[in-house]
């Protein structure tokens, strides 16, 4: 298989649970790198993952994993990793033993399984705790064990279902950093299924947005967040109001963003005017540069077809205390 071939392909993928349509002719593909599978609860993310894992058969359409039919070829799972959203760890077993067993269950010989279990526990920061029963671990540590079992057999692709669920802000940061590191250092591609836009924005290179079982957005994260016309972000140490007046006088349209000024629709001519306004106001410049919009803004501003769904997700995120 060529390295540029897609790892996962959904072709008109449909799944009905009696009268409920979980996936509705979804078409998308996922290649190497980190891909965010974004959508609200019930959008069909988990169903899509379960179909790719061969756990659920599609009602219609086809799910391909590494070019093979996921529902027919279970051997392909040896190259897949899966981190479920819900609890999946035995409480009475020590982490080292559990990971060794999971690696063996994926087909690795005992000796290599033990060695890889130790390596992965080091990667997720649990090497010192490896001989403790998993039941004694904190929520954050359990999430790390879940990630470790997903990686221990060295898959080519790892499917992570809500990996930051239940974590506090610092634990969430650590988990996202681990996910990033897993691709950057190990070369293991990641599908990050989540309803938290911030997680996708900080971690993923590509994004597939699902809503009510349909794909509503798909593409590079940067293509969503790059401004169509350039916006310049100006932060000054003092005389902010004078600078704003000066910019207005120069004919540059602006809006205030906290303690900073955002100059809109900036072209070459406007850069000269900003320079002149800065000189005229006497403000000392701290930082100035092109501004990248966040995914949240993109969907809030109606920049994507999924704006309505995403706004709802944002509310859920805020209510959940997400960073």
């Amino acid at each position, binding site marked *: 298989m060529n390295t540029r071939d897609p790892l996962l392909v959904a072709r008109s993928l449909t799944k009905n649970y009696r009268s409920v349509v979980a996936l509705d002719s979804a078409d998308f593909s996922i290649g190497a790198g980190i891909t965010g599978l974004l959508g609200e609860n019930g959008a069909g993310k988990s169903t899509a993952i379960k179909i790719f894992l061969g756990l659920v058969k599609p009602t219609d359409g086809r799910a391909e994993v590494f070019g093979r039919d996921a529902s027919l070829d279970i051997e392909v799972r040896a190259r897949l990793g899966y981190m479920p959203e819900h609890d999946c760890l035995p409480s009475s*077993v020590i982490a080292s033993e559990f990971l060794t067993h999971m690696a063996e269950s994926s*087909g690795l010989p005992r000796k290599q399984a033990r060695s890889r279990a130790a390596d992965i526990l080091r990667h997720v920061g649990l090497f010192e705790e490896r001989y403790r029963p998993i039941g004694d671990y904190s929520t954050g540590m359990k999430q790390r064990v879940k990630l470790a079992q997903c990686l221990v057999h060295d898959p080519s692709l790892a499917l992570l279902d809500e990996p930051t669920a239940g974590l506090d802000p610092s634990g969430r940061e650590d988990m996202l950093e681990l996910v990033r590191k897993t691709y950057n250092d190990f070369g293991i591609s990641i599908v990050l299924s989540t309803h938290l836009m911030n997680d996708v924005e900080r971690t993923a290179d590509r994004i597939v947005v699902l809503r009510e079982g349909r794909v509503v957005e798909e593409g590079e994260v940067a293509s969503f967040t790059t401004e169509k016309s350039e916006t310049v972000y100006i932060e000054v140490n003092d005389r902010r109001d004078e600078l704003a007046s000066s910019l207005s006088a120069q004919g540059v349209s602006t809006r205030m963003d906290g303690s900073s000024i955002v100059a809109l629709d900036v072209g070459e001519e406007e850069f000269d005017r900003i320079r002149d306004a800065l000189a005229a106001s006497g403000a000392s410049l701290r930082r100035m540069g092109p501004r990248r919009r966040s995914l949240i803004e993109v969907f809030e501003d109606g920049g994507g077809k999924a704006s309505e769904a995403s706004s709802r997700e944002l509310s859920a995120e805020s209510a959940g205390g997400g960073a």
Partner: protein
Amino acid sequence: MTMREGRVFDIGYQRYEGPRGGRAQARVAIFKDGIRTALGIGRGWRLKIVPWLSIFAAVLTALIMAIIVVTVDRVLDGSEATIDLPSHSDYYGIASIILFLFAALVGPELLCPDRRSGVINLYLVRPLNGVDYVGARWTAFLFVMLLVACLPQFVLLTGLVLGDPNPWGYLRDNWLDVPKFLGAGFALALYVTTLALAVSAFTTRSVYAAVFLAGLFFISLLVVNGFTERPDVGLDTRKWLSLLSLRDIPLFLNDIIFFNNGATLESVGEGSSAQNTARLHPNALLTAWYSLWVAGPGLLLLLRYRRILS
């Protein structure tokens, strides 16, 4: 003295390029883990108590039987008195409470916690399906059950051989007991393994499965024996009721293997236990009844795990 210089190289993360065993290796891994789980290996001390205490009790029972037989033999040496001493054919009947308790308490540990904790979800995304998983667990428990059933028989055999004034003579005269107790042990292990795991497939709580199994074994035994031992109950009724004692079903096979049955009304008599009363049935019927109790729960177990997958 010169110091040897050492350098530390961090070779970083290495991709795994070695062999992957696939489905067969996954089954073996789950089989091995099943044995470890059943015996509490790699688990906390609490999970070791029940299996090892049961094994100890089963072996102790065999040891006590051997001591009794050897002692009585020596006391009666030269005497004309005859006493029916317990032997390999009686061991499974005597130790059945221990063996059934072991199955009821340990069997559910192989299936229930995996579903309760969600570990089953991690198995099913590996290169195996639900039938592979439950097949490996079943084989593991059958192996452990066979060990627990047959180990005490070997202890008993060793005791009887060493206690005999002519050990080689004893072995020559009684060597046929070995395949017999292995066969009867296999029949018992097959029955309790399948029944224990089939019950466990319907609950995520080990304790519910254990209580239900213990209830099945012991309540059916008490109720059925309550009827078969009553002289006012007709013989035909007692004969058919005797088949309903779940503890005794594998013991029917034990009796067929050791005695080839053929009991008469006189030999069974009134007030006999369910196990004895059942000997009035033809061997074919008892064997078919036993097979039904293995195949039925086995099928249930298989269907249950096929459904879990879908």
